């Protein structure tokens, strides 16, 4: 059973704003899935549709095996909204217990889990203090804890590291890893690409209401990985030509001081190294290169914009 399986999700707001234009997604149990996209891409709209906060114009698919919008399924999902505001008059522990009660968790379990989760998010000392006095990072920690109070099978976190300092981010990454180890599916919505890259098993890039790319980072960087060969001194044109001839058709990118051979196979790089060395080039390094998530993201966004019509239909071929 997939945690989330969506096909053709559409949302057109009353003002005729086409927020989602046929989103297809799959999230599996025990994986951390990252959804990234520029502002206004429709990420939060999609999450809100999953949480029944927004009604979709069209939706097909399931969440934890039940149709999207099934209210009972919500008791098995944890959710941290972006820009959430917990009642300032509640203490940290009361926030956890209130939202757990709203998810139908028994009183006994509420007590037990609130103790545990305050510990997990590093807020044990703050549980008896009012949320109104918390810093942004502390509110995020409490938010993550409340999302876990009902022991969910699926956790949706919208910008969980927003406002959290680097130490806190690392702790949150630890919590996410723990969720994954516990077999929960984690759906992350974030602008922080480096954060996503560190924790996500799979990602989807959403632009103007459509998922343009989806898969593991390995899959998404397929054909874009390579090896950078750097010389101690700048490589001359003849050095580059010799390397290119030795590579027998492999794509090669030249940059000042280095060349990059686009291949996953290190054995196929050796002829270029041999050719350069035979020409007396002193090599300073040979490093495996992989585009970052940010590179992928920027490439996807710019390729969409280069078509000159934001949100224009790109077809399913663009996904995966």
């Amino acid at each position, binding site marked *: 059973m997939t945690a989330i399986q969506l096909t053709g999700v559409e949302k057109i707001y009353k003002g005729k704003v086409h927020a989602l234009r046929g989103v297809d997604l799959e999230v599996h149990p025990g994986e951390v899935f990252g959804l990234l996209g520029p502002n206004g891409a429709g990420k939060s709209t999609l999450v809100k549709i999953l949480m*029944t906060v927004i009604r979709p114009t069209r939706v097909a698919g399931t969440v934890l095996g039940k149709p999207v919008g099934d209210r009972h399924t*919500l008791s098995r999902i944890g959710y941290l909204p972006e820009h959430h505001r917990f009642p300032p008059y509640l203490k940290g522990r009361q926030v956890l217990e209130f939202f757990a009660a709203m998810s139908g968790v028994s009183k006994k379990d509420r007590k037990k889990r609130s103790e545990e989760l305050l510990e997990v998010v590093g807020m044990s000392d703050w549980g008896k203090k009012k949320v109104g006095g918390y810093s942004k990072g502390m509110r995020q920690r409490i938010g993550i804890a409340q999302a876990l109070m009902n022991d969910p099978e699926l956790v949706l976190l919208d910008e969980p590291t927003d406002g959290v300092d680097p130490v806190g981010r690392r702790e949150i990454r630890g919590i996410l890893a723990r969720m994954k180890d516990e077999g929960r599916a984690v759906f992350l919505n974030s602008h922080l690409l480096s954060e996503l890259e560190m924790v996500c098993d799979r990602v989807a890039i959403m632009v103007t209401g459509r998922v343009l790319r989806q898969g593991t980072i390995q899959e998404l960087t397929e054909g874009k990985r390579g090896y950078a060969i750097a010389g101690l001194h700048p490589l001359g044109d003849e050095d580059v030509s010799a390397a290119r001839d030795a590579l027998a058709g492999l794509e090669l990118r030249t940059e000042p001081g280095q060349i990059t051979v686009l291949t996953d196979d290190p054995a196929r790089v050796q002829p270029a190294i041999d050719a350069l060395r035979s020409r007396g080039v002193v090599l300073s390094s040979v490093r495996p290169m992989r585009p970052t998530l940010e590179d992928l993201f920027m490439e996807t966004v710019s390729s969409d914009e280069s078509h000159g019509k934001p949100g224009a239909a790109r077809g399913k071929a663009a996904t995966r």
Partner: protein
Amino acid sequence: MILTQTKALFIDAYRELNARKLFWITMGLNLIVVVVFAGLGIDEEGTSFFVWSFDSPIVNSSRISPELFYKSQFVQWGIPVWLSWVACILALVSTAGMFPDLVSGGVIETMLSRPISRARLFLTKYIVGLLFVALQVLVFSAGCFLIILIRGGSFSPEVFLAVPIVVLFFSYLFSFCALIGLITRSTIAALLLTMLFWCLIFLTNVGDGLLVMEREGRIVRVEDARENLDNQRVFAERRLEQLVSNGTPPRNTEGTEITDPELRLQAANPALKRSGDRLAKAELSAENWSKWAHRMFILKTVLPKTSETTALLDRYLITEDDINDLMREAAGIEDGVDIQAEPSGPAMEDPRAQARAEDAFESRSLAWVVGTSLAFEAVMLGLCLLIFRRRDF
């Protein structure tokens, strides 16, 4: 799960009200009013307020029983002034933000993402708001019940009828407040527009009262004019008989005898025509006032009946005999003597008109007062649910 969620919402609402301090401020004010009520006293010499005494030949325990004194204070001041105005305004101030806060960004997502239907979430919150008022009225009523019991010597559990009646009254306004809160998402707008709406209801009540009294006054004038016309006719007939028997029957300006019977009577008694004209004028006027009173009645039927709802308590707490006793004692009139007043001034000031208007108001049934008000509330809540269930947040 339903019970757990409902309980959580109730506890949260209490915490919210507690945090706003208004709950305790209102509760404190309620207790102050109860203490003031307890400070009132009545004895054979007159009345007292804590240590101050006021001798009165009219308001003393030999004329008004302590039971009736305390009950009438509760009905005259406790319900219409305190609970229906001051406490209600405080309750509105306390609860007006309930729905705008609920639908504000960052809050509504955390609530709607729970396994609770939107309708149940809204209605539970709504009931929580009403419970706030119920609790306040309960405390106030309990205090008043004890005072009437201890100082008035009367066991009057009907005082607690104030709880459902005031909650019912408040619910009309609260439903409107909730609708505005949902539409505008603004506490200030919800509060101000509800106050304005309340003013509209108040003005409608005043208009209705004035129009019904004036209508009844005009009807009384029609009846007077008709009676006067009948008298004039009798006089005219007698006069005509006299003229005919004297051999001087009525003649027109040309000197020939008038043959038309009505004209003969008018010639015999010129006041007959004036009386007829007066009747026609009075009938036309009564018809016009009836039309306007009817239009106001239709408007009033659509709107919630706030004052009539609180006045329901009078029907149960103080009997008609009590009121008659009170009026008789206050006016110093002994049993068996009718109260009569001279008919003079504007139509609505005629005591007969006022009495009839009173009858007209009392003839408005409980079903009309509560039924149409609840229908209004149902429409408001229906709109609230429609908006709350369909809106994207």
